[in-house]
């Protein structure tokens, strides 16, 4: 039987899952490769598992929200990602949605 801690952890992960996509899209307004993106997110307090991050980047790219290219940096080939034009439009809409939800929830949980 799951403990209270297990239940809380499951709910916390469900809560975070959608918001991480928004955070990733927001961070890719500037070009980054996967490792630097993860570091940038960690610096603002959003730790993300690599096992979830890289498949997510590929999914967002296949959906047309990101573009990517291979380039050499520090003598190593790296894949750089950034928002596509479609991704920028989606980010604006998701951000508006996030603010609206945040305002509503602030009132609810006050």
């Amino acid at each position, binding site marked *: 039987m799951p403990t209270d801690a297990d239940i809380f952890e499951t709910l916390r992960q469900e809560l975070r899952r959608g918001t991480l996509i928004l955070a990733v899209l927001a961070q890719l307004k500037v070009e980054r490769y*996967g490792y630097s993106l993860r570091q940038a997110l960690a610096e603002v307090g959003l730790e993300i598992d690599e*096992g979830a991050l*890289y*498949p997510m980047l*590929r999914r967002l790219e296949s959906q047309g929200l990101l573009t990517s290219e*291979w380039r050499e940096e520090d003598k190593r*080939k*790296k*894949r750089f990602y950034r928002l596509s034009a479609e991704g920028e439009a989606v980010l604006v809409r998701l951000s508006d949605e996030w603010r609206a939800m945040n305002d509503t929830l602030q009132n609810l949980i006050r």
Partner: protein
Amino acid sequence: MDLLDRYLAAVAALLPRAQREDIVAELRDILLNRLEEKEAERGRPLEASEREAVLRAFGHPIAVAGRYGASRTLIGPELYPFYIFAVKGLLILAAAVTAIPLVISILLGGEDAARGLAHFLSGFLTTAMTLIGAATMVAAGIERGWIPVGDLLDWKVADLPNLGRPARKTKTRFEAAFELGILLLFICWWTGLVAAPWALIVGQQGVFLAAAPIWTTLHLPILALAVLQAMASLVTLARPDAIRVRACLDILADLGGLALIAALWTAGRLFTVAPSGAAGSKAADIAGLQASLDLSFHLTVGVMAVVFLSKIAVAVWRLFRGVERPALVAG
């Protein structure tokens, strides 16, 4: 080949061919970054065991490759409730097809209760596991789009079983699906693809039921009738709006059923209760049992003839009207 290459080769073998090179190149960069990060922490090159620990922490190659797969669940959350519903139905079906012949066998004295229970458990487990395995493969095929379902999952409230009104007159998609399942199972038994449950009845010690020769004569017609009935169920399932096609198939199947009933009626005895060295009072018991069986089978055949005639009359009416009865539309 160092540990990193070995690890990446194991992941690569599990990745889709089209994306393999690209994903592996990216994973190599990620893992080299991780290794360099650890080296920076320690201020020295990593030992082999430390490199292995980094790779282990990244995840088993099967799990890592699985994250890049198109579908990560065998049966998705939308299909799962339908799958579970089907599995529950199949468990009931497995219990019924295992228990019914066994009960008959016990009643005929061919099996004692303890052996019967053991037979039931082994028969039930085999049948249930086979059916659930088949259902799982079908559901996984549907989930991946390998098995097209068209508008099968497109449902109407009128198609739902009318649980609050026992006098329901329509054949819903649920009933058609159940009927199709039973018929396919019967066809498998009849053609010998799977062992028939009535095989348990034959060959037991004491008394056993032997099928009359008429069943051998009617083997192919019964198979053809079952296939025709299965087609009718399939049409009801896939195209419930094709009322005239369904009516034609129903009439053909019912006429076939009626012809079969007539052949069985004229054949006389359908099953023989055969004694195994019975004598005296036991022989008398067997004769009594045979008479009861003959009477009950003839009664059943008579009732079925009436049912088939009624069904034919309804199907002809549907064929000419081209609509379901009011109760069917109202559901």
